[in-house]
């Protein structure tokens, strides 16, 4: 596959190396910045690993209470764990939950311990946080065992279907039905407001807007239901959710604890499309990706979004740039190639002449640049007009590109896109469409060789050249708008390079949850993740 793909487009290996070098040059200063900060959500995720869960009667999670109390008392510059485990050692409360409850009413005084107290607090914190890490390890082993037992889907791409009723108890039978009909991956779309909540809701939920809240209990319920389905169907059905928004690190942690298999996790999506503060995003993203790496979770990146807001031909190279940046950030955080579900989408206006050939060129370029990654191929949405018949044809052509270019994950397109949330019959028809194309043309990768120097090769080369040009611009961006943030990538984000949206490092939602680390900062979760240790 790899060498064959290489031959298809005749990309110059030196050019490809140059693209990766530029992505690293742009990304590295941002990683350094991320390492120098922590966020309230990273700290809360760490407490969740140590086993703190649940919420008060107003549904404010105990992790929020405890992190807020520590922040108020001694600040978060040294991390939340040291003062918390110091308080436990001093007998302020017998356990974490009681401590959080006491702290929520201001009944605990926190301090930064020194010498023996410090050593003890750190040792105990590490011991308790390591339990969560080991749970994640166990869940990963369970997944491997179940995959061996039930098997992976027989063919690629894996078929990815979305469920979104708002009610977890409606989602479950729909997801099981979708699996029976041929879905290999079930994604439960989140309630659209969740990305801007600075807490993770608790419990099983039945009310959501255009999606279902991501909660630990909802994760557990759906994973258990799909384990049943896997057994019934004789193939392991994967579960997907969203590690994005203000609680990205916590959601990633819950996903690891509850054995989710894939998570949407883009490096810049929250910044550009949700106006979340850039630094908050990069810090949260790095931690969440470290968790995903450990948990064996495949991330899905969100390059499709660039194409829905900009023209899919003009902006084709921004997808490539984003894929390269996502790859850099992912690998830096420890993710392996097989975990990189880099995104791209079939969003060219069907009225554009040769739109299908352009789509083929773009899809092949992604395939060839990232030969080991399970690319995620996403269906048309922008040019779905409500004419469901035409939409069905468009989805057929989308599936055909997927078949011809060896995509790893295929998000099933719905003819009723932009009309209703998918009906049972829409899903069934959509799956028939996928099956027909894969059955009829699945082997076409063998025969399909775009001619040397032809339209498809030329277009792919052009997009790559434009991507390199943009990366050069980003890596050397020195607008100097903010002397505190000399990182060129932040400059580029601030001056509207991506998606024509200007996002300054000093603005955006969640900025008040970002904290500069002090010299003595300690986070046992990060230590365990970076060392790869279990105790």
């Amino acid at each position, binding site marked *: 596959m790899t060498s064959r793909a290489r031959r298809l487009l005749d990309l110059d290996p030196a050019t490809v190396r140059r693209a990766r070098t530029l992505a690293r040059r742009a990304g590295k200063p941002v990683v350094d910045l991320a390492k120098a900060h922590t966020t309230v959500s990273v700290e809360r995720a760490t407490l969740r690993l140590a086993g703190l869960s649940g919420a008060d009667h107003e549904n404010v999670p105990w992790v929020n209470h405890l992190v807020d109390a520590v922040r108020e008392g001694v600040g978060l510059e040294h991390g939340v764990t040291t003062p918390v485990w110091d308080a436990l050692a001093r007998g302020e409360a017998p356990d974490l939950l009681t401590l959080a409850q006491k702290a929520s009413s201001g009944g605990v005084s926190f301090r930064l311990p020194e010498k023996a107290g410090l050593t003890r607090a750190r040792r105990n914190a590490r011991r308790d946080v390591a339990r969560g890490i080991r749970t994640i390890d166990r869940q990963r082993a369970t997944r491997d065992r179940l995959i061996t037992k039930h098997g992976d889907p027989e063919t690629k791409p894996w078929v990815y279907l979305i469920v979104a009723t708002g009610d977890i108890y409606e989602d479950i039978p729909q997801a099981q039905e979708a699996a029976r009909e041929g879905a290999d991956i079930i994604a439960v779309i989140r309630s659209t*407001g969740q990305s801007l909540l600075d807490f993770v809701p608790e419990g099983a939920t039945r009310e959501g807007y255009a999606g279902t809240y991501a909660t630990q209990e909802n994760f557990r319920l759906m994973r258990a239901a799909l384990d049943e389905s896997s057994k019934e169907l004789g193939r392991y059905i994967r579960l997907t959710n969203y590690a994005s928004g203000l609680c990205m690190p916590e959601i990633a942690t819950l996903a690891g604890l509850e054995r989710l298999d894939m998570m949407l996790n883009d490096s810049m999506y929250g910044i550009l499309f949700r*106006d979340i503060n850039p630094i908050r995003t990069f810090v949260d993203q790095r931690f969440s990706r470290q968790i995903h790496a450990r948990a064996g979770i495949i991330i899905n990146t969100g390059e499709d979004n660039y194409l829905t*807001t900009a023209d899919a031909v003009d902006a084709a190279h921004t997808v490539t740039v984003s894929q390269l940046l996502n790859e850099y950030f992912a690998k830096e955080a420890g993710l392996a190639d097989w975990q990189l579900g880099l995104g791209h989408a079939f969003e060219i206006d069907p009225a554009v002449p040769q739109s299908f050939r352009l789509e083929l060129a773009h899809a092949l370029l992604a395939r060839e640049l990232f030969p080991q990654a399970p690319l995620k191929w996403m269906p048309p949405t922008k040019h779905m007009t409500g004419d469901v018949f035409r939409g069905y044809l468009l989805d057929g052509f989308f599936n055909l590109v997927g078949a011809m270019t060896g995509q790893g994950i295929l998000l099933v397109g719905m003819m009723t896109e932009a009309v209703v949330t998918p*009906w049972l*019959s829409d899903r069934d028809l959509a799956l028939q469409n996928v099956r027909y194309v894969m059955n009829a043309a699945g082997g076409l990768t063998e025969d399909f060789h775009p001619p040397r120097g032809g339209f498809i090769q030329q277009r792919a080369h052009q997009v790559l050249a434009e991507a390199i040009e943009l990366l050069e611009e980003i890596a050397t961006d020195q607008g100097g708008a903010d002397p505190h943030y000399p990182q060129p990538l932040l400059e580029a984000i601030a001056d509207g390079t991506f998606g024509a949206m200007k996002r300054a490092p000093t603005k955006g939602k969640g900025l008040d949850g970002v904290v500069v680390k002090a010299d003595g900062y300690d986070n046992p979760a990060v230590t365990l993740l970076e060392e790869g240790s279990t105790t």
Partner: protein
Amino acid sequence: MTPRTEAQEARNRSRRHVSERRMEDAVVGETSLAESVLTTPIVRPYGDTTGDGMVQVSFTLPLPHDKRAEGAALQLAAKMGMEPAILVHAKAIGPKFTFFVVYGSVTHLVDVREVQVVEREYDLLSAKDTNAAIRKHLRRKLVVVGACIGTDAHTVGIDAILNIKGFAGEKGLEYYREMAVHNLGAQVLIPDLVNTAREVRADAVLVSQVVTQRDAHIHNTQAMSAAFREAFPKGKVPLLIVGGPRFEEGSAGTLGVDRIFGRGTTPGEVASYLVHALVNPPTPSRKGA
């Protein structure tokens, strides 16, 4: 029972039926084949022959696929006024559901005279005329603020109207030289929208609501209009406009906004309306061109 035979049979039955109907069943006021469709107020759906009344529907019933389910589908079609109805396709979706495609002739007649539409109350202007009107009468830039509010993250609607790229071949409002456009993007909080509108002295506020569930678009819009009426003195509230596929025509009053735009609205229509409402004092008698 292969689909091919089913479909052929369906077509044959449909032809037979149409020829029968045409002979016995002429309706008063319905045009004959020779007459133009436009001359009559009474119409029927058109399959391939005037007056055949043919429609096509698809639906799913929560029944396992068997003869009884097919009978149930035909019963539903009959109750929907399809007479005779032809079941052209039935397929099991899992063990508990069946999907149907039904063709048939509807017994209902449509009287075009009884159809009520909201006529466009303003003239359509070109971008040039819009700019000229603002320059001449307002003598400053017309300030527009746009956003997706609430949980809706889908900016396609507001972007289609505001972005230079525009929609349906028309350039967006950012292209208009005499307009100052502030597109705040998605998931904008209502207080932020109100503050921005005040800061930039907005003449008009455009709010888009594309994806919605459980009437979120209505609640969000009402909350938005209430916030504006609270924050601005009477008579100083900017022109409030909402757009989205789910808003009902004629519900502007209940929503507390000045105008609703539905699916397929182009930037030129919005620009022309802005001129109508803000630049020229509205003259109630004017009708669309």
